[in-house]
């Protein structure tokens, strides 16, 4: 499945506290994050922290899809893939919100998943176009699936963030609280960075999936802090100010734990960590 890093993974003895193997496989990750994310998106009445957990899983999935798409050797193009995923996400979220009112039961919005499915289909089609012999014929392994997952993860992430900020998924509430206030810019750019930055920051021949994912979780923690601040500012949550505060605390804990873990993993796994030193002289 994986080509070079798989060998490295086995060589590396998993040091205590540095392995982060939940869930181990890309397919399992996609299934778990997709199902949990979709369920949390539908139930908009949940407290923000639970939506934050869903967001974390979905962004981890999105990062995995970016990694899958760019793993064949894309260098400077990695950020573009993350932005592409978020672009899919914004379009899909708008589509889902437009049909959200159909089949609504109280605080349940099952129809928003139409946007997720349509974006998955669009991603699949664009992947087929990019890979197909008759069209662009890029022949990147497993590009179709990666593009499909990218669209779905991006859409779920934007929908979850809208649901965190507004407490519902009705089109008018989202337009008033997210679009008109300009917070959509915050959602867009941080979604991009949660998906593109981990793989972009860990790019190189000795990249390891577990380490990259620690970075993704760390950025999701930062997003939770910012969303908590925005929630307190907007004051839209049905649970009052406590919802925003709990979101900030949750995000801060996640950030501290995973930032430490990531930096420690990097310092342990790199060639050498030295206080200072002169560069190696070339012969």
């Amino acid at each position, binding site marked *: 499945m994986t080509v070079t890093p798989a060998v490295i993974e086995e060589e590396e003895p998993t040091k205590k506290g540095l392995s982060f193997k939940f869930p181990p496989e890309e397919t399992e990750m996609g299934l778990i994050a997709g199902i949990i994310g979709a369920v949390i998106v539908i139930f908009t009445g949940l407290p923000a922290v639970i939506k934050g957990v869903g967001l974390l899983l979905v962004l981890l999935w999105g990062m995995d899809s970016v990694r899958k798409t760019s793993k064949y050797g894309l*260098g*400077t193009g*990695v*950020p573009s893939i*993350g*932005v592409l995923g978020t672009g899919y996400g914004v379009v899909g979220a708008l589509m889902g919100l437009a049909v959200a009112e159909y089949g609504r039961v109280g605080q349940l919005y099952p129809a928003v998943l139409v946007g997720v499915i349509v974006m998955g289909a669009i991603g699949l089609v664009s992947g087929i176009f990019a890979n197909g012999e008759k069209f662009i014929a890029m022949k990147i392994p497993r590009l179709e699936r990666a593009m499909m997952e990218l669209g779905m993860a991006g859409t779920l992430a934007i929908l979850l963030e809208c649901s965190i900020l507004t407490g519902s998924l009705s089109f008018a509430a989202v337009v008033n609280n997210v679009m*008109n*206030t*300009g*917070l*959509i*810019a*915050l959602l*867009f*750019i*941080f979604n*991009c*960075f949660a998906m*593109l*930055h*981990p793989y*972009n*920051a*860990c*790019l*190189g*021949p*000795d*990249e390891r999936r577990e*380490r*990259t994912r620690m*970075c993704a979780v*760390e950025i999701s923690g*930062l997003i939770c802090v*910012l969303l908590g*601040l*925005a929630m*307190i*500012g907007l004051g839209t949550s049905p649970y009052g100010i406590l919802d925003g505060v709990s979101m900030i605390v949750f995000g801060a804990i996640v950030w501290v734990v995973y*930032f430490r873990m*990531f*930096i420690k*993993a*990097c*310092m342990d*796994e*790199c*060639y*050498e*960590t*030295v*206080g*200072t*030193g*002169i*560069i*190696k002289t*070339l012969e």
Partner: protein
Amino acid sequence: MPIEVVLLFAWMLVIAFLAFIACTFEDLESDMGSQSNPNSQVQLAAQVGQVNRFFNKAISGEPLSNAMYCVTAGTIAWLLLRQFEPLVPGEEWKAAVLAIPIGVLAATMINMIFSATSHCGRTAAQKRFQQPIYLDVLYGHLVPIGAHAFMTTFCITCIAYIQSNIGTLSGNPALNHPFALPLLGFIWGITVGAIGSSTGDVHYGAEREFQDRPFGEGKRVVYHGKITRYAECGVRTQKDIAGFCLKFGAPCTGMTFGLIILFESWRSMVGMQLGGFLPALPAFTATGDMAAIFGIVLGLLIVAALMVGNLVFVKWVRKKYGPFVGV
């Protein structure tokens, strides 16, 4: 001329000046962390055996990363403004004096977090090329990066604030920008990053790396990593590069961005003035079309003048310094 119009032009000049400062520091920040300027060289250097003491700040491209800092600063400043402004009715600027620096500080922290993760991550991913993580490089560059980013983000957030309140500041609230502060920060962040990324990269290329070659061309790619190794005295780090770029590259970048903002705002303002659109906005009638037409004609004139000036300048340079060998 009515005082509102004079004030509008004055604020436009303030915005152009802030844009100049912002883009100067943006270029220096990218030099300090090798984000765009010698980033591909830093990335490749270890792979061709040139182990270096450079900071590898790979936070995507400059437009996106600057958009991120400016959006963060704009969002937090906007949230604080919403809380503070009702406390000081009639003197809203007091709220801005407090809110903007706090927002920018938060953005700077986020910048430093992302810088640290990208440096450590990329160096750890180059294990097989024997590139170590030098802790003094990591700690010693984070604060300069944060300081330069603070200046950029601060100026951009100020521009966004002035723009979203320009009508109130000059006495006619109808002229306020329709976009909210975070969205303006996003647009300006993308712009400042794009200009900083494309202009003023004097560090690698003709000006420094290949000074012994005419017009700096013609060396094999494998030698490009050498740019990361030794400075005029001792081992090179990015603090040397920022000092070098400050002399010419960074002010050049700042001037590019400042001039773009100045010409762009000036032509639209003059167009609005000539079209009878200022100081009070009339309903959208034929006057609006006239304002747009005047603005576009002025813009075309500016572009033509710049093109002619550029042509004359390049001709003069070619005559003075000989033909370009690379052609």
